[in-house]
């Protein structure tokens, strides 16, 4: 199994507060890894460190090795835009650009100097299971789509750039169960082509889609392993308590 994305001895602090302590994780190619843990455990912080979203916070201090295969993600000679092109991201709340559906996909392609003809747009929308629903309304503002459709548009926007990894930060937390299932189906489909890391608060969701699960608590990895093992036969008592819903 090829390791696609990894973090070694990762420490992150914001100002005086240390959020991640000595994290060592590795995500395998074409697998879905779920990051679970109670609110504030640092799972989103970990996810966002891979595509360097913390560059926006001046008080973030990051040490350790983050790698996409052999590429050092914090290498000063690698442009951050290149990293974000190879590691796409889908956010908690769907955040389409205030532009048309077509432009939402085309924008990322344009700024990366990639072809952005209708065939490319169609391919991305088909990959996100959205094409049939929007093919006649490509000029419509994306904000008029339903929440679930908007989130699939954001996934289409990410896959249009042909990334290697897609990071998902609780992509279904604002959606109804039907839209959630649709997105889960989509994620399962996407793993054939991409490596996916997903933060989720939904234990059923993690069991339904993830190959591996990492349990974080207070900024540390408490347990990791195949999803079935984490949920059926956890080694740590804390993991057991969390997945059973005793705290969180």
């Amino acid at each position, binding site marked *: 199994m090829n390791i696609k994305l990894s973090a070694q001895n990762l420490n992150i602090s914001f100002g005086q507060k240390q959020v991640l302590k000595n994290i060592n994780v590795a995500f395998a190619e074409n697998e879905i890894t779920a990051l679970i843990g109670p609110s504030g455990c640092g799972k989103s912080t970990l996810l966002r460190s891979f595509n360097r979203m913390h560059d926006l916070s001046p008080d973030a201090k990051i040490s350790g090795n983050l790698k996409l295969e052999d590429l050092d993600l914090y290498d000063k000679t690698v442009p951050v835009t290149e990293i974000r092109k190879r590691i796409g991201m889908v956010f908690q709340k769907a955040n389409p650009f205030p532009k048309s559906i077509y432009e939402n996909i085309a924008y990322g392609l344009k700024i*990366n100097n990639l072809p952005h003809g209708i065939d490319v747009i169609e391919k991305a929308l088909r990959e996100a299971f959205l094409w049939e629903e929007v093919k006649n309304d490509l000029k419509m503002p994306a904000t008029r789509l339903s929440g679930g459709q908007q989130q699939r548009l954001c996934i289409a926007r990410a896959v249009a750039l042909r990334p290697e990894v897609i990071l998902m930060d609780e992509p279904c937390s604002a959606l109804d169960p039907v839209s959630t299932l649709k997105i889960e189906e989509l994620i399962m489909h996407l793993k054939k082509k991409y490596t996916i890391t997903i933060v989720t608060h939904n234990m059923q969701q993690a069991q339904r889609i993830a190959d591996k699960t990492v349990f974080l608590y207070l900024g540390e990895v408490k347990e990791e392993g195949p999803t079935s093992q984490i949920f059926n036969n956890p080694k740590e008592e804390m993991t057991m308590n969390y997945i059973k819903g005793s705290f969180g």
Partner: protein
Amino acid sequence: MQRKKFKLSSAVEWGTLLLSTGLVCFFLIVILLEIIMKGSGSLSWNFIADIPREGMTKGGILTPIIGTVLLTMLTALFSIPFGVCCAIYLNEYAENNWLTRIIRAAIRNLSGVPSIIYGLFGLALFVQALQFGTSMLAAGMTLGLLSLPYIITTTEEALMRIPASMREAALAVGATKFETIKDVVIPSAMPGILTGVVLTLSRAAGETAPILFTGAAFYINGVGGAVNNEFMALPYHLYMLSTQHQSIEEVRPIAYGTALVLIIVVFLMNLTAFYIRYKYRKNEY
């Protein structure tokens, strides 16, 4: 008993609020009615298309209209680019430290400086030190300075309202910071920026004190319109007709007509601002 007491006090509160609102509206309506009734008599095509004649007792007010329109355009030219760029720098690039906080506080304080101070400053800097003379250029720059703090503040507020998730969306597809600002943040903030700009300019168009020493003239021959010369402007024309003219009683209708035209100009500009907001809201962009 308890219940009745509550009702009474809520009636008092409700009455106070209603009375205050009514009082404000009352004065506004009285002022507008007064100007419309006394000014509409002198409104005609000739009034706005003819230059002042016979010591300004006859003819129209074309010269001050042209002066005010050009002056407002000069003000826009000097204040919008600098103001918008300054706001973008402060909100998007500058670190939030004590220096930027002082700069921001200073800008906000500047918007409270009386406009006559700007007039004196413009006289000292543009008219005398930079040798522009009393001219439309000097007056436009002075009004530009006056408008800057408003444009910076309203633009910054418009930028601040754009949620971080919007910026992250652009960054996540590989946009640089500049591309994010240019392609996503500014287009989203555009209605707010434009509204602020138009309201600021409509305020500048009605200012008298800053142009008093820097370029506004009692009277000029012809239609005017040269930026390196003195000019006539609607607010100053109104001030002059009501207080400085040798036959004030005779020109009173013209003064009211001028006031009405000035109010219409400002009203049209405000209407533009509302239209922009309405249009963007409708499109959900």
